[in-house]
Structures are given as C-alpha cells and as structure tokens.
C-alpha cells in the first residue's frame, strides 16, 4: 500500500459520505483472543478457542482447515450473524477500525454489515432468496442502507452485475436465482456483497460448490475486485490449492485454534506444523502424478471433548508425551512465521 488514503475518496460508485470508520495505518480488523461455544443437548461444543489475527487494507488472508475446524464460525462471529443461542461468545474482541463490534449496540453493528464488512457464502443457490429477482436482491442493499429509490437502486444493481461480468445484465436483472448457472449465481452474491463498497470482504469457501474452471474465474474476479477496491479479504477454504495464487498470508485452523500462520509461499514451501504438512500432502501435485495422496489419518476431535494438550496429538506422527499434556501456544518460530507445535523447529527442518 503506497498511500493509505481515506477510504471511498475516489470512487464514483460510492455515493455515501465518508464512513465514520477509518482504519489506523491500514489496520481494518483485529480479532483478539476470540472464543465461541455452542450450547447444545450433547454438551458444550468449543468451536473457537482463542483465535487472534489482524487484517489490513489490501491484504488477503486465507483461513485453511479441514471441515469442522471452525472457519465458518469465526467468519460468522466477525459478521455477527451467529444464532445466539445456541452460540455464545464467552471471551474475546473483534475490533473494526478500533471499534469493538461485540460490545457495540446491535443496531449500530447491523449498519456495519454491508457497508463496512460483507460476506459471501459457499452455496450461492441456497444463499440467495429463491422468490426474489436477483437484481432486486442486490438493489435491496442500496434501498435499505442508502435510501435510494427503486429505479436508482436497480440501475446500480445492473452496473454491479456488469462489473462482475454477468452477460446481458440489463436483461437478466429481473431473473430469479434458479435461472442462473452456479458460477453466475456466485457472481451475483459477490455483486451483492461489494455493492456498498465494504472495507472487509469475507468469502467462506466461495468456490467449493463450483467446477474447477469456474473456480479459477471466481477467484480471479475476487482478486481483481480486492485490488481495485483495496479491500481486506478473508478467504476461507479447505483447499490450499484454490487460494495459493491469491492469498498473502495463511492461517491454518485446527479444532478452533490457529495452529500455524505465515506467508503463503513459506507455508507452501516448508510447513511449520505437522497438521499443515498433512494438509499439503493431501493436495494432488503435478510433479507427483500417480502417487496416492497421503491424507491425514483419523478424524478431527469432537469439540465437546477436545483432547488435553495439543488437540492434534491423537493424529500426529510426531506426538510425544509433552503433546498430550501441554497446550502449545502459537509462537514465532522464525521471523514472520508462527506455529503452535512443540516441535515446530523440527518440522521446519523437514
């Protein structure tokens, strides 16, 4: 970032007054020691157990982890769209431009959803309302947040649909979600999410439901929009291959904790946690064609009964006595690299 300008200074699309939220030194989001648990009939599922990370303007953070590791819950806690109950946030802060979202009055927080922080989901078909035209659903952002009238907001919707490269946007603005292909639907979700020019965009497995070729198109669209608008982008995925080209940093999650965090190429080249290594080994690589994938054995832990010590120890080949008793903290093991493994140095040596 050469200049950290006031957000929304130079874009014609954003008809809003400058936001009252202005990042300090480009720092948009600070998640600080966040905990989330679910109170269910089966007990208390500890879904998030002390997650911390920052997000800056123009930065892309990938959150990587197996299904059930707490990626979506983290995103929904940031958005404030968890159902509480059953969810509960016993501790932690989520600061947006210095304001703690978790203690903010609900109406004030609601107004940040859309104009400040926005989110897209995995399954665009079920995430769009089936009974309203897509243009109407995009235009709703302008009508409810900006008070624009029907025709103005529909005009904006058409322009956004054009921006996300939906062919014949003007003719299709009145079509319904089921009349589009999966990739086009996800573009509509993206158009809706960026409508009010948010500073932070969270994409929760945006391409998981799509064909491989469409996946690549959606990822490059996200990258393009992020650079154009200097958004902070959080890309959630269980597939490192999908985000490797786009992400700057990667945070690897396991059982509701960040177990490793580093720049994308460092992690790719040399993982610093046995779990990350397991994840990398399960990606098919061109240079290892024909070899069987060595996925990690075993299953993620039951979140109502997370093992003592390192949560990964029952599945870890390197696990030692200390791993079953002491919880390894996330620590800097090399400059710019953090890992929550007692034996991180050994793992890095390979």
């Amino acid at each position, binding site marked *: 970032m050469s200049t950290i300008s006031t957000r929304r200074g130079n874009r014609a699309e954003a008809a809003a007054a400058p936001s009252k939220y202005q990042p300090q030194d480009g720092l948009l989001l600070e998640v600080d020691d966040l905990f989330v648990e679910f109170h269910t009939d089966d007990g208390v599922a500890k879904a998030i157990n002390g997650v911390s990370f920052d997000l800056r303007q123009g930065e892309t953070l990938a959150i990587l982890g197996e299904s059930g590791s707490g990626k979506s819950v983290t995103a929904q806690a940031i958005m404030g769209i968890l159902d509480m109950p059953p969810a509960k946030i016993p501790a932690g802060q989520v600061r947006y431009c210095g304001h703690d979202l978790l203690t903010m009055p609900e109406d004030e927080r609601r107004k940040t959803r859309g104009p400040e922080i926005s989110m897209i989901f995995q399954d665009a078909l079920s995430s769009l309302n089936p009974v309203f035209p897509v243009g109407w659903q995009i235009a709703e952002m302008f009508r409810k947040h900006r008070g624009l009238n029907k025709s103005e907001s529909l005009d904006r919707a058409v322009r956004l649909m054009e921006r996300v490269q939906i062919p014949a946007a003007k003719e299709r603005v009145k079509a*319904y979600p089921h009349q589009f292909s999966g990739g086009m639907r996800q573009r509509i979700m993206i158009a809706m999410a960026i409508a009010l020019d948010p500073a932070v965009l969270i994409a929760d497995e945006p391409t998981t439901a799509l064909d491989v070729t469409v996946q690549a198109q959606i990822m490059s669209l996200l990258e393009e929009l992020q650079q154009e608008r200097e958004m902070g982008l959080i890309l959630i995925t269980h597939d490192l291959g999908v985000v490797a080209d786009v992400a700057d940093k990667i945070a690897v999650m396991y059982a509701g904790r960040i177990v490793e965090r580093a720049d994308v190429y460092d992690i790719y080249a040399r993982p610093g946690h046995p779990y990350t290594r397991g994840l990398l080994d399960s990606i098919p690589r061109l240079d290892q064609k024909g070899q069987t994938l060595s996925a990690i054995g075993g299953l993620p832990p039951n979140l109502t009964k997370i093992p003592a010590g390192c949560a990964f120890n029952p599945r870890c080949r390197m696990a030692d006595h200390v791993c079953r008793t002491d919880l390894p903290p996330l620590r800097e093991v090399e400059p710019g690299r953090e890992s929550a493994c007692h034996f991180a140095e050994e793992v890095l040596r390979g």
Partner: protein
Amino acid sequence: MTKYVIRRLLQMIPVLIGATFLIFAMVFALPGDPTANKCGERPCPAEYVKKFEEEHNLNDPLPIQYAKYMGKLAKGDFGTSFREIPVKDELSERYVVTAKLATIAILFETVLGIFAGVLAGIRKGKFIDNLVLLSTLFVISIPIFVIGYVAQFLLGVKWRIFPVTVNANATGLDSWWQLLLPGLVLGSVSVAYVARLTRTNLVENLRADYVRTAKAKGLTTSRTIGLHALRNSLIPVVTFIGADFGALLGGAIVTEQIFNIQGVGGYIFSGIHNRDGVVVVGAVTVLILVYLLVNLLVDILYGVLDPRISHD
C-alpha cells in the same frame, strides 16, 4: 401461461363429464320409484308419472338421459325441485349464503392462523409456541359439531353476544353479522392447520441459508423475518387456504344445520334425503365446476408465489 390455463381448462372437461355422469348414474339409476313421496301419502296418478318420466327422459337408456340432461344444464335449465321451485333460483340464493360463510371462515383462518403461526415460529420452544401448539391440537381434535354447539350455546344463548341462528331473510350487513359466529366456527379447525403450517414452515425457513444472507446484508430483524423468511414460508400456507376455500364453497352441512343456515350443503343434503335427483345432480355439478376452477386458480397462484414453479 395462457397455454397452461387453456390446457387446464380442457383437462377439466373429461373430469367434469366423468364426475357428473357418476353422480347422475347414482341418483337416477338407483332402483326405486323416482316419483315416490311426490304426491303425499298416495302413489302418484298414472298421468303424472308419465309426464314426469317424459320430462326426465326416464325411458331412454342412461347415457342418453345423461346427455339430454347435460344439454339442458348447459343452456342454464336446471329444472325444478319436488316443491316445484326452480333449482337455479334456489341454488343461486343459497350460493350467496355459502360464499359469505366461506369468506368469513377464510378471512378468519388467514388472519388468526398466520398471526399465531408467526408468533409461535419466531418464539420456537418458548411459552407462546407451546400455547399455540397445544391450543391448535385441542381445536383439531374436537369434532366441529361440538365446537358449533358450544359456541352457539355460550356466545349466542348464554352471553347473547351473537345471534343464535341465521334468519334466511337477512340482507346486507345484517346477514354478514348473523353469519359471523358460524363462519368462525367453520374456520376454527383450519385456523389450527394454518397456524401449524405457518409455524413449521417459518421455523424451517429461519434456518435457511438465504436468511443468513439477509442478516449478513445488514437488514433489520423484522425485514429478515417478516419479508425474506415469511415470504417463502407462506407459499404452502396460501396454497392450503386456497384449497380450503374451494372445499368450503361446497357447503358446510354440519355448521349449516347447527345455525339453521340456508346454504348449499343443506340443499344437497335435503336433496339426497328427499331423493330429489334434479336438485342433487344440478347442485353437485355446479360444486364440481366451482371446485375445479378454484383449484386452477390455486395452481396459478402457486406459480406466481414461487418463481421456481414453471407453468410453461
């Protein structure tokens, strides 16, 4: 859409012919003397029997009888009842009453049913939800004649809030007022069904992904629930109410009896009772036609409410 409607209207023809022929066959082909009881205690004079048989083509084979009858019906000639009253006149008079009664019942079940269902759905598992579930179960499990007589006794006789019975000569606002209590009784069971249907669908839709999206868009809770979730939840509810309207337009024998209402249900009932075939077949034919038309309207409405349903 126009094509769809035309196709559906054409499909109605065989259904209408089949159903009316069945009724016709059952009423006129049953053994027994069709002129029995027509002339008081004594058997009818031979001349009269002859005239009657000619008038109703009773000496033709059944399909010919039927065809001749339907031909008259199509020209608007419904014939006359035993009491020598034109069926057309009495039927249209009674249809007005039945339609009013059905309208009251439908309005009642729509307004109260959806209201109670929404209240229960957004407070799932809470006191109000249990109250709605329990009270609707109660209403569903009581036979309607019990509800009718109890309501008539308490609200009409004892507390004198409503008229006890319906006066056949009442007109205008007065007739609506007299039909109010019977309409509420008639709609009571459907209120329970509508409430439960609304609740179940709302609870399900509140968990839907697009409701999560609505929240993520920064919409207010009332808009998220009241527009996004409810709009989807009401699709099956509206369909149910539409079908119920079609059924109620067929008359309500029990409720009509209790409150002495001169509706279509009682007309057909007494027609069957008196073995008055002209009344029964004429009225039932109209009922079938109305029912088919209302169902077509419901199906069209369904396509309008749910854009995923295509009528092309």
